[in-house]
């Protein structure tokens, strides 16, 4: 290998009490797709951001083309040819697609006045490759906020590409993308590689890593533990490298047992598994059309199909978070009030929403409150007065049962790694002993071992008599957990796959067959 294009070494970064990076590094060459792997909270995003200039490290050196680089901000990074796709997207919802793609580098005429035509041309060029994802029509003048999550992710990618980088950082850029969009992105990345661009690729989907990347650097606890040639390694070995010598955690005692153990004094509902059923009839919203199905207690109903066909909307609507214009839901023979999350929650429905940061957690609030909130009224005197000890005990049990890695219950939940945040969001509902659990992509961005733990919780919930409805962008996850899968297309149930019919390839083909016009 010639002079590495990028050499990062000894990078340290501390956030208050958290040592996010503790001597991390990475060496990669021109024309390489280099994976950056590690469990949640191992420092991947922080290292990426150090390179992209949004994080300034406490220590460490970055060399580009052998020369030491001072990256004091995104503009420095840009000057060095670095562009990034951030895990937390860097697009502005109120600006149009065009405005976002050229943001910060707007083409101008004299005196700083904008050149609108040049901007459109540049944006169109950057997005052309992905036209299929927008049904062939580029929404250049639409506000990005009006787009779906996958479309937004693509705009973010196009924006980075439009900067013509020598080094492109992709931090979980595929997390919101569906298979066919991922393929387009991979094609682009391969072309970039052919042009000598270095792509630093972070993903928790190991199949993607093996399909795309040449080498992988693995982080653990903020340290680089090694770099491997992917051609010469396999998934197990990679996982071992990520998890370390710690014995690979066996799926634990079921989450439902956890729930039973911590249910507060208000737990007067007896769960009689055979009786609980959820029946949905003709549910309609502005994104759902006439959805009907029934789920039994103990069953995990999966939702499949292409991304954005109404899966999240269905879960939101059942919880009252999306406005239902028609239809009804019946839980145990009694109508489930649609339209009010508060009523849904009191009727025993729980929602683990798809966007943890926006919909699921209270980032600046303590872990304690995040865990207590959904169920505290059961433990409160006269539904108002809280007892500190009781709340602490309830939260503490959940932390132990779900093995949430925390410092103190008083720390803001934002100080946890993504996987642990996800467990908090699930845990708050387990304290409430829900009868219906709606899970929207519950392991998005969660590392391998946390994923297994969450799977165990889901199975335990079902085993304990809850109705579980699961949406997942990960077909493997659907296959592994679902007893049945409803494939959605354009807001309607297009197909139902029974247990024996569920397989990853079947899920993919079902999803694609439903959209014949969108061949890639």
């Amino acid at each position, binding site marked *: 290998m010639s002079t590495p294009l990028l050499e990062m070494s000894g990078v340290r970064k501390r956030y*208050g009490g958290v040592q996010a990076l503790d001597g991390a590094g990475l060496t990669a060459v021109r024309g390489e797709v280099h994976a950056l792997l590690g469990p949640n909270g191992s420092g991947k995003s922080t290292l990426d*951001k150090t390179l992209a200039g949004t*994080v300034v490290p406490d220590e460490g050196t970055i060399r580009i083309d052998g020369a030491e680089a001072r990256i004091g901000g995104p503009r420095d990074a840009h000057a060095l040819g670095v562009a990034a796709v951030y895990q937390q997207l860097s697009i502005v919802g109120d600006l149009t697609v065009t405005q976002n793609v050229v943001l910060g580098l707007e083409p101008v005429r004299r005196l700083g006045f904008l050149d609108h035509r040049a901007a459109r041309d540049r944006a169109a060029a950057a997005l052309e490759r992905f036209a299929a994802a927008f049904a062939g029509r580029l929404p250049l003048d639409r506000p990005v906020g009006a787009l779906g999550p996958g479309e937004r992710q693509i705009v973010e990618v196009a924006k980075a590409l439009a900067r013509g980088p020598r080094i492109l950082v992709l931090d979980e850029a595929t997390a919101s993308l569906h298979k066919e969009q991922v393929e387009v992105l991979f094609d682009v990345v391969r072309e970039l590689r052919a042009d000598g661009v270095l792509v630093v690729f972070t993903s928790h989907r190991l199949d993607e890593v093996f399909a795309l990347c040449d080498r992988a650097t693995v982080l653990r606890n903020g340290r680089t533990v090694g770099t491997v040639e992917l051609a010469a390694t396999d998934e197990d070995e990679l996982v071992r490298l990520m998890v370390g010598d710690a014995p690979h955690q066996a799926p634990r005692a079921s989450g439902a047992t956890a729930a039973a153990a911590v249910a507060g004094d208000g737990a007067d509902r007896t769960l009689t598994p055979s009786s609980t059923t959820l029946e949905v009839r003709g549910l309609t919203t502005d994104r759902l059309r006439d959805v009907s199905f029934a789920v039994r207690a103990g069953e995990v109903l999966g939702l499949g199909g292409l991304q954005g066909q109404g899966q999240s909307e269905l879960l939101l609507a059942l919880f009252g978070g999306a406005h239902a214009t028609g239809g009804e839901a019946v839980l145990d023979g009694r109508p489930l009030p649609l339209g009010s999350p508060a009523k*849904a*929650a009191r009727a025993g429905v729980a929602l683990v929403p798809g966007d943890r940061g926006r919909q699921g957690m209270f980032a600046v609030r303590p872990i304690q409150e995040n865990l207590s*909130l*959904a169920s505290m009224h059961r433990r409160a005197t006269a539904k108002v007065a809280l007892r500190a000890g009781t709340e602490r005990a309830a939260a503490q049990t959940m932390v132990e049962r779900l093995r949430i890695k925390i410092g103190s219950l008083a720390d803001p939940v934002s100080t946890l790694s993504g996987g642990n945040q996800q467990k908090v969001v699930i845990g708050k509902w387990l304290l409430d002993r829900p009868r219906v659990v709606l899970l929207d992509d519950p392991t998005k961005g969660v590392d391998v071992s946390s994923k297994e733990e969450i799977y165990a919780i889901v199975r335990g919930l079902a085993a304990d008599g809850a109705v579980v409805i699961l949406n997942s962008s990960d077909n493997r996850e659907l296959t592994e957990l679902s007893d049945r899968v409803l494939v959605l297309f354009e807001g309607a149930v297009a197909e139902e796959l029974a247990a024996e019919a569920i397989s990853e390839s079947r899920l993919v083909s079902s999803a694609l067959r439903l959209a014949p016009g969108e061949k890639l």
Partner: protein
Amino acid sequence: MSTPVLETPGGLGAWRPGPVALAGAVAVALVIVGEIVSPGFAGYGQLVNLMRVAAFLGVIAIGQTIVIIAGGGGVDLSVGKVATFSAIIGSRVMDGDDANIALAVALSLLVAAAIGLVNGLGVTFLRIPPFVMTLGMIGVVQGLILAYTGGQAEGRAAPALTSLVNGRVVFDLPGLLFLWLLLGLLAVWLLRRTTFGWNLFAVGANRTAAELTGVRVNRTLILAYVLSATFAGLAGILLLGYTESVFLDLADQYMLPSVAAVVIGGTLLAGGIGGYAGTAVGAIVLTVLQGLLTTLDIGGAWRTVVNGVVLLVLLSLYGRQRRLRS
């Protein structure tokens, strides 16, 4: 009004004094400066006086703290006017007679709460930004005051109210201070040990997530505005006890200082973070500053300038927004 996040004081590693301690230190420093500039400033009697003056701001700022924590640009600019209105009603109804106190207080607080309810409904169901909703409410309440009084406030505080507020209890401390302490403890309990309090923080930290956790967001917000107006009304009654008679603009000037007290106390204007203890200290800091400026013999114009500059310094000690680059 972006979405600032307070720089979280470092966890285990870098310990920084919390906002309450910091604001407290500032208050002490101001008193010391006062004593140097104008001997007598730190005397016991004067400190008691300052605390007494701080109490009104402190009580008004209870409600302000609550609505600010509720987030979404939450702020109640109508507190001063509501306090004035409450005092005007209280004065007219009690009319110098102890027998009328209960009725007067009940009526005043009821009217205040009703105004808060309208604020809350406007903010939730009509989606009017709190800043302008409560700003518009100032005009409405002023209108109500004129319609109610015909421009001439009447009545007087009942003697029992006056002695409750001004009378010395122990250590020569006026009853007002004990009332403030009581209300302050109530506020702290409300925020930290009730389902309402935790819901409020949740709503302030992330409204969507609160909704999707089953929190009745609108109800929480409306209650926040009702409480804000009610505490303002209560402050108006206390002020009535202090001044004995009322004037059409009795408490108007508390509007923005109540916000400043909250911020100096470390509560984040973006919502979701904060508490009343800091606000109480913030109210004391502002009052000590006013007292200090009053005793400084500089012209009114320069006094105003100095006031602004010192405020800026106070604000920069705490309540700064997060850096974009970490």
